[in-house]
């Protein structure tokens, strides 16, 4: 069949094609109506008459690689079809931008160079979503950007405050004190529970189970409850037992100035021992003879005082100044007023 015959039978086959040259030098043919979707290409065809042959191929901007061109043309191919609903277009676009950030970045540069505004818009929104909610470090990683702002420029006093070693020490001390108190509570409860435990011996139980045969195989004395408790105490505080070895070494190896201050602390408050990692930890008092309800608040008070001493000690550069201020008798004006904090009730406060 001749070309003209074919044109009569299948006119849609006689589409015109445009020649495009991408950044790597390669040249390809693209359906004209799809390529014209890109304003830059459109301009080249109309005003300069380029692209109708291989020799007059339109030289695309250098951001347009063959792979990005292919993606852009896919986009254009979809959207240049007139009958599509908004819903269809939106759905297509949502799927279209599901690609890695690197590709998105390549693509947006290419689309921008071709002046393809809707695609630039679409990708820009997608990139914005990748940025939202992220920290500067994360954003840097995603986009491979240098960390070239100085500390001053960043004005970042926002370092994680628990990095301050003094605060860490204090918090570790509190955690240990809290643990100690919890342990004591638990021990108290365990004691109470033990008292409720079945007091029958193993023999008695066997007799009961076997239907009172009266045969007792072995006579075991009931467990000494006090002994058990002692055992449990020791089991529960393995860390402290183990530490008693190394901590002594540490103490000896420590420099004299700290040792003296440590010594002071140990002297004043026998509950503190020095641990390997530089924290102060409490020794558990095994003698629970004085464990009744009245003690706990006093222990709390003791802990509070210890911690305050500790805090003062570790902030020694301010300690001297504070000594002056605080030892010279305090005037406490009574500021307890009858009014509460809700004097004037603003609704929007």
């Amino acid at each position, binding site marked *: 069949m001749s070309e003209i015959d074919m044109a009569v039978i299948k006119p849609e086959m006689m589409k015109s094609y445009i020649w495009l040259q991408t950044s790597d030098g390669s040249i390809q043919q693209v359906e004209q109506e799809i390529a014209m979707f890109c304003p830059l290409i459109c301009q080249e065809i109309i005003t300069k008459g380029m692209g109708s042959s291989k020799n007059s191929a339109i030289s695309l901007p250098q951001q347009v690689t063959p792979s990005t061109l292919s993606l852009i043309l896919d986009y254009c191919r979809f959207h240049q079809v007139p009958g599509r609903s908004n819903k269809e277009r939106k759905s297509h676009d949502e799927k279209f931008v599901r690609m890695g950030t*690197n590709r998105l*970045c*390549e693509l*947006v*540069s290419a689309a*921008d160079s071709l002046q393809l505004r809707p695609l*630039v*818009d679409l990708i*820009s*929104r997608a*990139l*914005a979503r990748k*940025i939202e*909610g992220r920290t*500067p470090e994360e*954003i840097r990683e995603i*986009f*491979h*950007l*240098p*960390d*070239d*702002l100085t500390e001053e*420029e960043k004005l970042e*006093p926002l370092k994680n*405050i*628990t990095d*301050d070693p003094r*605060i860490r020490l*204090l*918090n570790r001390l*509190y955690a240990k004190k*809290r643990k100690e108190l919890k342990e004591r509570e638990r021990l108290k409860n365990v004691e109470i529970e033990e008292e409720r435990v079945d007091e029958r011996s193993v023999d008695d139980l066997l007799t009961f189970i076997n239907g009172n045969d009266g045969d007792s195989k072995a006579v075991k004395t009931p467990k000494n409850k006090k002994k058990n408790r002692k055992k449990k105490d020791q089991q529960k505080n393995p860390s402290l037992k183990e530490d008693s070895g190394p901590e002594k070494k540490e103490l000896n190896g420590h420099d004299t100035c700290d040792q003296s201050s440590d010594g002071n602390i140990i002297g004043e408050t026998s509950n503190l021992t020095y641990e390997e990692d530089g924290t102060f930890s409490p020794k558990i008092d095994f003698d629970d003879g004085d464990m009744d309800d009245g003690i706990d608040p006093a222990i709390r008070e003791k802990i*509070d005082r210890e911690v*305050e001493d500790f*805090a003062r000690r570790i*902030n020694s550069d*301010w300690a001297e*100044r*504070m000594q*002056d*201020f*605080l030892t*010279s008798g*305090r*005037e*406490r*004006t009574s*500021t*307890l*007023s009858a009014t*509460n*904090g*809700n*004097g004037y*009730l*603003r*609704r*929007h*406060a």
Partner: protein
Amino acid sequence: MKKTAYSFPEEVLEHVFSFIVSDKDRSSISLVCKSWYEIERWCRRKVFVGNCYAVSPPILIKRFPELRSVTLKGKPHFADFNLVPEGWGGFACPWIRAMAGAYPWLEEIRLKRMVVSDESLEIIAKSFKNFKVLVLSSCEGFTTEGLAAIAANCRNLRELDLRESEVEDLSGRWLSDFPDSYTSLESLNISCLGNEVNLLALERLVSRCPNLKTLRLNRAVPLDRLPNLLRGAPQLAELGTGAYTSEMRPDVFSNLAEAFAGCKQLKALSGFWDVLPSYLPAVYPVCSQLTSLNLSYATVQSPDLIKLVSLCEKLQKLWVLDYIEDDGLEILAASCKDLRELRVFPSDPFGLEPNVALTEQGLVSVSEGCPKLQSVLYFCRQMSNAALNTIARNRPNMTRFRLCIIEPRSPDYLTLQPLDDGFGAIVEHCKDLRRLSLSGLLTDRVFEYIGTYGKKLEMLSVAFAGDSDLGLHHVLSGCDNLRKLEIRDCPFGDKALLANAAKLETMRSLWMSSCSVSFGACKVLGQKMPRLNVEVMDESGPPDSRPESSPVEKLYVYRTVAGPRLDMPGFVWTMDDDSALRIS
């Protein structure tokens, strides 16, 4: 293999940035690298300055040359409770003057707790050709003359909102200064004005602005004028009535009811001063569409109040007086399943005896019945750990919890114990809690809970609580996201403050009044921390006329890049390197 950065054209990056609007994200972008910092600052259009003294106008203008919207906050929050003396600061004028020169295209100014003069309003009126939004929230220092300047000159004004400001109301004429050709008003809030405005001018203004969505009238607008106003703006979405009382006349009533029924888009109602209960049914036609109801000035008693509230099934926000009582709250819990925010204000806060049957039970009911409840402000006279525990377990999605037990240091009324465990349960279960106000009898233990669990906490208000510095230390060392801490009448002193000095640079501000912080410690803090302004307030005279160990009356510490401020009144001293010289 290290990948090279993608070099976008700047316009593309700007375009990407144009879709990123939250302050936090804008800040993150600007901290990525030098080139992004530069691009971002040129295309930043909106800025929020949480403390007007943290930065200065020249610094702001230099960094962001193309702003269209600026929000500034001045006085600390405790100013709402009269703890900040007159003249303290927060002056808007230097900002407005500077912005008038630098931002001719500025469109929006929002100020909170600042002192605004008529002169400033006149500058705004004359300097910004495309000015659209003026919000003055809890501000003071201006008169209706300043408003007249705005009305007369701002041709493109969309929003004028004076919420809770103290305005010297010289005359109601200013409203007439809106020219007849002016039709772009979308939102008007004059609820704080004392005197009558020119009602005819108001009616004409309302009816010629087709986009008016929000209209909040002041008390002086009589009820019988409301129907006309409503008929002039049937598209209203938010309405604040004036006084809601009148001679009881059936024609007035039916007129009103008809007018309300005509407002098909009405979603929010407020106002309701001096309510005459027999007029309440006039709003019944719109109740089923309401999402927001502010009855905090409505001195209506129970049956009428409950009836009204129970009709609002779509309600998301309710502000009400404690006349609603436990019974009413129970019905609220049953009727309004979409409730997100509840504020219950006291009708008689200074009375010694309870005047209404409102207890902790009301709040428990609402916490049980309203699964979306996230924000609570509740005034009551008794609370228990058990109730707080229940509330916490019911509503782990709570983000703002402010409880005000009226009598300071009230214990759990059932066990007479401190309320430590109750509040502890709140912070433990409500993992997204951002704002917390404490009250009642509280020891250091509650602060230990807060420091342990309050990881997302941003703002904490404390009064008459704690035993020692440990309390303050727990909060400062434990609450990673703390931005604002305000404390009054607590036995917190120097140690915790100085041990956690570095933390203060990560926060917006710290307020401590009637505590035990010594003048000496304040000086040390000021000297050690150059990026903090440590301000001592003392109305009884210069602090150095007393021993260094004596406690300061009020302490306000905030981070700043602008150095010590220069507009302090006589009773405020900044502690810094030069403080020794300045005080003498």
